[in-house]
Structures are given as C-alpha cells and as structure tokens.
C-alpha cells in the first residue's frame, strides 16, 4: 500500500476522537481518511515502551502541534491506547499527536483558555515555535552583518527594541491559533488537500466560462492601472514565465515528467530568432533575414525537435534520472551558448534582434520598446495556448497522459503507447518554450545569463506553486510569484528580497502543497494517493517514509 493511511474512519477505534471532531462526515464514508503522515508510521517502534503510548484518534488530521511527534511521551494515553488494533496507517495517523488530549474527550472538556489547557506541553511547544519564528523574523528584517563578526548582526537584531513587536506578534499569533476555536478542525481542513466530492472531479468540463471572462477582462485592464515599470515586469517576468509555465505544465503536470532543464528550449527559441532575423546579432546568421513573426513556426519546430532529440534516448529513464539528465541538458545548452563566441557571440549576447512587426496591406505596426503592446500580444498567445491545451487535456492524448501519470504500467498494459506519448508531451512543452524564446529575443537584448539553471528551477516552482496540471493555476502561479518579487523590489533591500521570497514558498507549500489553483483531476489524484491508491504524480509515491 502507499502511504500509511488505512481506512481509519470506520474501522479504527476512533470512538473518543469523533465527538470532539468538528465533523468530516463524508470522510469515513469514502474511506479516504486523511491521516497520512509518516507521523503515521509509528513512533517508538524500536522501543516497546513508546509503542504503548500510541493513541488512535480516528481521523485526526495533522496539526502543527504534531511537531511534538516522536514525543509520544506526552501522548497520553487517552482511553484508546489500544490503537494498534487498526492498520499501521491508522495507528500512525494518530500516534504522534499527543496533544490536547483531554480536550477531545466528550464529557470532560475544559474551555480552551483554561490554564491547564492553555499550557499543555504541546501548546507551550507551539508557543516556543512561534517565538522562534518571531526571533527569526527579527533577524531577517534586522541589520546586515559581515563575516568578521558573523553573528553580531543577528544578535543586534535580537536585542533591538523592535524585538518586542515581534514577540508580541508571536504570542498573538499563538493565541489566535490556540484559542481560535476548533484548532484541530481548522488545521486539518487547511492541511488536507482541498477535496471536492468525486462527482465534481468529473463534472463540468469547460469550467465556468463567466469566471474565465472576468479573469480575462482583469488581465486586459490590469496593466493600465500600473506604472510602466510594472508593465515591463508583467511582460518580462509574469507573461514570459506564464507562457513557459504553461508549456512545462504539459511535461510535468500532464505527463508527470520532471524536467529541470526546461529553459534550454527557451534559449533555442531565442537564438533561433537571432539567427534568422538579424545579420548582426550573432556572428553566425542566416543568409537571409526574416521578420521575427516568421521565426515563430521555425522556433516551434526547432525546439520541439530538440525536445524529441533529448527525450528519445532519455525518456526511458525513471523520474529522478530524467530530472538530472534534463538538468544537465539545460547546463550544456547554457555553457555552449556562453562559450561558442564565434557562433552565438558568447557572453556578449545577441544585440540587435529586430522587434516584431507586421507589414500587411492596411496594417503596418512595429512593436517598440514599450512593454504594453508586448503584453497584449503575450496575453493573446497565452489565452490561445490555454484554450488549445484545454482541448488537448480532454482529448484522447490528454487522457492517455493522465493514465501514464497515474499508473504507467497499467496504462501500458491497456495499450497506451507510453513512450511515444511522453515524447509528444516533451515536444509540445519544448515548442511552447521555444515560442516564448522568440518573443523574448525580439523584445530585448539577451545573453546566456538569461538561461541559467535557476531560471529552470523557477519555472518549475511557478508550475507547482500555481497548481500542477491546472492551466489557470500555473498562470496564477506566475502572477503571484513574480508579482511578489516585483512587490518586494521596493519594499525591502534588494539583497534581502529572496529571503522573503523563499519563506513565502515554504509556507505556501506547507499549507497548500497542491498549489494555488489545483486542477480538479489532480485534486482527485492527490486524494487517491492519500487513500493509498496510485501516486500523486508519475514520479512515484509521496515520500511519506513508506511506499509500495
């Protein structure tokens, strides 16, 4: 089985737990108890003494206070110490909790502000964690130090009067969490992936058209409300990354293949543009000059071809091996671009790629250096790509990808040409990336720095942050992540920008690992994987410490 989550609802001796639980009626019924968690996997195994302390609290979901975890010492014993009766999963799901134990017993419930309740060891521990977070926040926002006195700056920030603010905040946060009512329910609900009834997972297909139109209208109007600098960022950071993320979503989200060198195809698109549309940008150029618009199809094909060339030999590799090979490919493309002075102009980059322009009878328009026209062009492309991928997702191909992602062996057995379809996903993803590259190259100067490994990672982050497999999700991911980066630009010292950025990503993943706007299908897959059926992605089961 995958994941140590037994059908704890019905079978687990969860008697005492349920009454205190603010209700998850549907849970028990579906048998998809949330109780995953390695937590799960039994505290205290090597030590029989600890094992006795196990409690089973039915569908007890995860809670932060489970940081207490191994400390089954304070997992006192509620009346269901016979927990081992359940499957190992259900044992686990509760085993490590050991908090707020008394509170859940029906007849014996003290108000949450009762001192004995308030200062239970687990809550004190939570307070400790909050205070640590407060101190960390003080350090993060404090002075910049140097290596001569390594810890001086951190110390200064902690003894600074400002610390009072952070500590008060930490305690307030703790009180909110502790007294905020049904903490457990709350955290459980937050913690478990958002679940819709199964019916909706297969429900309406097109999504709410009205909502989509509103979003589109917002996207059209939004840039007019912002400064030109923000518009620049909306093109360079948000727009391009949204497009890249849509492409990568096909590879990672639909087909479940982890590609860590995705930006390489972007580079191929950009250099193809320089090659075909300018005589001066690179030492190596085509004997003729094309309008960048005509390079779009060429780059599409070239990047797709590169995807096939990379994919054909490597797609037989399993998840993580593929990840490292694609990572290597990304590195190779960047290094070669940086070194081949006589072909790509090396580190000096390609300057002078013409802007996009249309010369048709009646229309004569050239995109200049203003970001706004590029924004609308990008928006149009993104919308088109989203529509196209929506159709693709629901087509036979899309369903085959889903099958591969959910269970490759079963898919193969039922006649899905797995390798060919994976290759197709790779090629489609790559061509979108190449497309974006043309746009970028025609917009502005670029050099190999633009195609770094970090950029590849960032696209992956956008996809997962937004919601793997969800077209709207990945676009929202690009908007939120890049928007955050732009927002922080003025708010904090530039050098500290990525401290906040990193913290937001971690917090987000802790509270919403399924991403901002998860796709319905993925939601169901995550549910199933929690229930122990299949993996949440084609990369194997969730790393819970147990596996099939």
């Amino acid at each position, binding site marked *: 089985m995958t994941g140590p989550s037994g059908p704890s609802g019905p079978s687990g001796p969860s008697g005492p737990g349920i009454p205190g639980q603010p209700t998850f009626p549907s849970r028990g019924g579906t048998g998809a108890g949330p109780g995953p968690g390695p937590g799960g996997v039994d505290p205290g195994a090597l030590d029989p003494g600890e094992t006795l302390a196990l409690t089973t609290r039915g569908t007890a979901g995860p809670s932060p206070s489970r940081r207490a975890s191994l400390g089954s010492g304070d997992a006192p014993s509620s009346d269901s110490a016979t927990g081992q009766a359940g499957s190992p999963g259900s044992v686990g799901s509760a085993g490590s909790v050991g908090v707020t134990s008394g509170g859940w017993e029906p007849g014996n419930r003290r108000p949450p502000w009762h001192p004995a309740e308030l200062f239970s060891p687990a809550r004190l521990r939570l307070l400790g964690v909050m205070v640590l977070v407060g101190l960390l*926040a003080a350090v*993060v*926002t*404090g002075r910049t130090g*140097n290596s001569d006195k390594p810890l001086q700056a951190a110390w200064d920030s902690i003894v600074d009067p*400002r610390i009072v*603010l952070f500590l008060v*905040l930490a305690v*307030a*946060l703790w009180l*909110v*969490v502790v007294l*905020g*009512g049904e903490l457990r329910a*709350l*955290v459980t*609900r*937050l913690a478990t992936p958002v679940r819709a009834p199964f019916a909706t997972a297969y429900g309406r297909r097109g999504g709410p058209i009205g909502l989509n139109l509103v979003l589109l209208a917002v996207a059209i109007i939004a840039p007019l409300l912002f*400064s*030109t*600098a923000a*518009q*620049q*960022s909306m093109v*360079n*950071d948000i727009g391009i990354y949204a497009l890249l993320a849509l492409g990568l979503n096909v590879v990672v989200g639909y087909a479940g293949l982890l590609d860590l060198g995705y930006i390489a195809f972007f580079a191929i698109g950009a250099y193809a543009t320089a090659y075909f549309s300018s005589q001066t940008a690179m030492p190596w150029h085509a004997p003729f000059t094309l309008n960048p618009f005509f390079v779009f199809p060429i780059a599409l094909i070239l990047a797709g071809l590169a995807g096939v060339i990379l994919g054909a030999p490597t797609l037989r590799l399993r998840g993580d091996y593929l990840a490292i090979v694609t990572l290597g490919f990304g590195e190779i493309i960047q*290094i070669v671009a*940086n*070194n081949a*002075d006589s072909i790509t102009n*090396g*580190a*000096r*980059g390609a*300057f*002078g790629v013409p802007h996009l322009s249309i010369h048709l009878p009646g229309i004569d328009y050239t995109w200049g*250096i203003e*970001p706004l026209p590029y924004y609308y062009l990008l928006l149009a492309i993104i919308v088109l790509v989203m529509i196209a991928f929506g159709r693709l997702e629901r087509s036979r191909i899309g369903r085959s990808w889903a099958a591969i992602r959910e269970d490759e062996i079963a898919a193969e057995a039922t006649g899905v040409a797995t390798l060919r379809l994976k290759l197709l996903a790779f090629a489609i993803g790559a061509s979108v990336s190449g497309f974006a590259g043309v746009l970028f190259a025609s917009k*502005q*100067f*670029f*050099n190999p*720095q*633009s195609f770094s490994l970090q950029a590849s990672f960032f696209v992956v982050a956008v996809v997962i942050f937004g919601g793997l497999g969800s077209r709207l999700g990945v676009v929202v991911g690009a908007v939120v992540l890049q928007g955050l980066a*732009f927002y*922080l*630009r*003025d*708010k*904090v*010292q*530039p*050098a*500290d*920008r*990525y401290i*906040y950025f990193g913290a*937001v990503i971690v*917090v987000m993943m802790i509270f919403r690992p399924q991403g901002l706007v998860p796709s319905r299908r993925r939601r169901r897959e995550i549910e199933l994987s929690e229930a122990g059926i299949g993996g949440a992605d084609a990369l194997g089961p969730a790393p819970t410490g147990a596996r099939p």
Partner: protein
Amino acid sequence: MGRRPLLGAIALATAVTLSAAACGSSGGDSSSDGKKTITIGFQGVLSGDNQQLGLNALYGMRTAVSEINADPSSTFELKLVESDDAGSPDQGPTAAQKLIDNDKIVAVVGPMFSGATKASEPAYTQAGLLSVSPSATNPALTTLGFKTFYRVIAPDTVQGKAAADYVAGVLKAKKVYSLDDKSDYGTGLSGALEPELKAKGVEVVHDGINPTKDYTSEATKIIASSPDALYYSGYYAELALLTKALKDKGFTGKIISGDGSLDPQYVAQAGATAAEGSYLTCPCGDANSDPKAAPFVASYKKVNNGVKPGTYSGEAYDATKALATVFKQLGSDVSRDSVLKAFAGVNYQGITKTISFETNGEVKGSNVYVYQVKNGAITVLGNIADLIKS
C-alpha cells in the same frame, strides 16, 4: 469561518514583518533647511551572485551623497533611489523603467554590467535620462547608438593594450597564459589583451573557466604549460581562489589581473602570502593606496560601517560627484534634458581619473596604472606609459 483566523494571522504577521522591513531599509533621508532636493537613481547588481560588486558601487554613491548633503555650501540635497537589475538582461528593462517612471530622477548612475546595460539603455535613450555607468567596460557599448550612455571607466580595449605593453615590455614575459572567466567582462578583456600580446611576439595560451571555487585542476593545467605570466580576466573573488590554488602547487610565474580584481578583498581572500607580488592593472587610480584619496576612504568607511572601498566604489563615487558638479552649474534649471546636455561638457577631477568625455560618451584619457601587492597591501607602481619608457 474555517481557516480564516490562522490565515489572517499569517497575513497580519507577514504584513507587519514586511512593513517593519520597509521602515528598516528606508531610514535616514532628512531634507530640511530649505535646500532643493535633487533625486538621482542607481541601477546595479544588488542581488544574485555578483551583488558584492553592486554594493561596492552603491556604497561609493552613498558616500558621495552623504558628503554633498553634509556640505553646507552646497545649494541642494541629493536623494538616492536604488533599483536592482541583478546584473542580468532580463531584469534590466524593469529596473531601468522603475527609475524612468519616477519623474523626479534627473540622472542615473549605472547600469553596471554590460549585459544589463545593453538591455536597459534603449529605454534610457527613449526617455532622455542620462545614465553614467561606473563599470560597464564592453567596448561596443558606445557604438550601439545609445544617446544617453556615458561611462567613467575606460573600455576593455584601453586596458587590454596597456596591460599587454606592460606584460611584454616591463615584465618581459615570453609566454603568457590568458585565462578569462567567460563573463561579458572577462572575455572582453582577454579579447583585447591577446591580439596585442601576439602582436608583440608573445606566445599566448588561452583558456576560459566559468567562475567556480575549485581551481585545483586548472592550476595543474596552468603550471603544465609553464608560462612566464598568467593574466586573469575576471573578478577578485575567483582570482583569490586561483592564486591560492596556484601557490599551493608552487607556481612561480607572475600573476596579473585587471580592474575587476583591484580590491583589497583580493588580498584578504587569497591570504597575504599567496597574493604577495601579484600585479593588477587598472585604468583608474586606486583609492585605497592613493594618499590623495584618503579623505574619500575615510568618509566611505564612516558612511558604510567601516567597510573599505572595493572594485567600482571609486568610479561610482566619481560619477556621483561629477553629476553634482553639473547640478551646481545648472543652478535652478535641473531637468533630465538640461542635465543630459550639460553632462557632455563636464570636467571634474575625480579620485580615479579626470572625468571628461568624448562625444560618444567614452571617458577621455587612457592612463592605465599598474599595482602590485606588497606586504599584504595593494600599492601603486605607476602609470604604464611612464613605466615602459623608463
């Protein structure tokens, strides 16, 4: 109600943290006593792997700004707006646009890296906003039609030629190993140096290596080709590691590098024993060793928590001071337009060089100095042109 309280609390915490941070970072501009405030921008590398170079320049600017603001005779106060481009072309246009959008800004010091410059300069040209780069040395920059681009640092070609003269003429090297860091700057410099050396009949071995920490096998490679001298085109952090690796393996040739390595941190990071005797060329005066620049060094340290000036600090300081002289000349008529026009004719005696420009924005004069690490400190040997004659 569900999740609201916790999320609310987190949002609150984040908001407070961010605003606290914002307050923390923006302290200390006090404009009062009726002086006019002039705003200038800085665009440079303030995040990413090269941010130390950006900080060097920014600190130099801050020093100049605080000197000017503390000067009772000055008729205006300077206000500095920073914009980070991470040194990359992707973020260049956004960073530049941010400064352009702020219509109080009348001039910009930056961009710093050639790649970011090429990406940003079209926007500056269109907006008619003067940009003075303290560090972009790619020779092509002044030929690409940017009307607002000036730089207070000589292009690679100037330094490459002088360095070749020195290596061949004074150090009498017969075989030179030219290593660059495959960056825009490094390849530019080695590309200027190598033909000059070859023209003088010096045997040149070329290699490029991406900035890394591990130069062990590169050191073996260099020693195996037994050159008389190694010229490294790149920055001090890598040169320091390379020097250490070479000295560990007993390299006896001379180690020479360019302006990117003229930084006291070179000696600190390589260790004084390893760095001893290395040569550094630079088309600039070195603030730390030049007695005339002592006041600058002192006020730099005062403004920036005791940090010593580093690579590009002096250039950024000079650029800011040169801007200030223009503001002074213009009196009340300070606008983007007037500043741009007046800056072409500036003549200011800076600490790194005399700042005056050719029509294409290139700084005039091409004195390249050579420095050597002696007793753990970088000391000036003299102007290369003079050293060759003697």
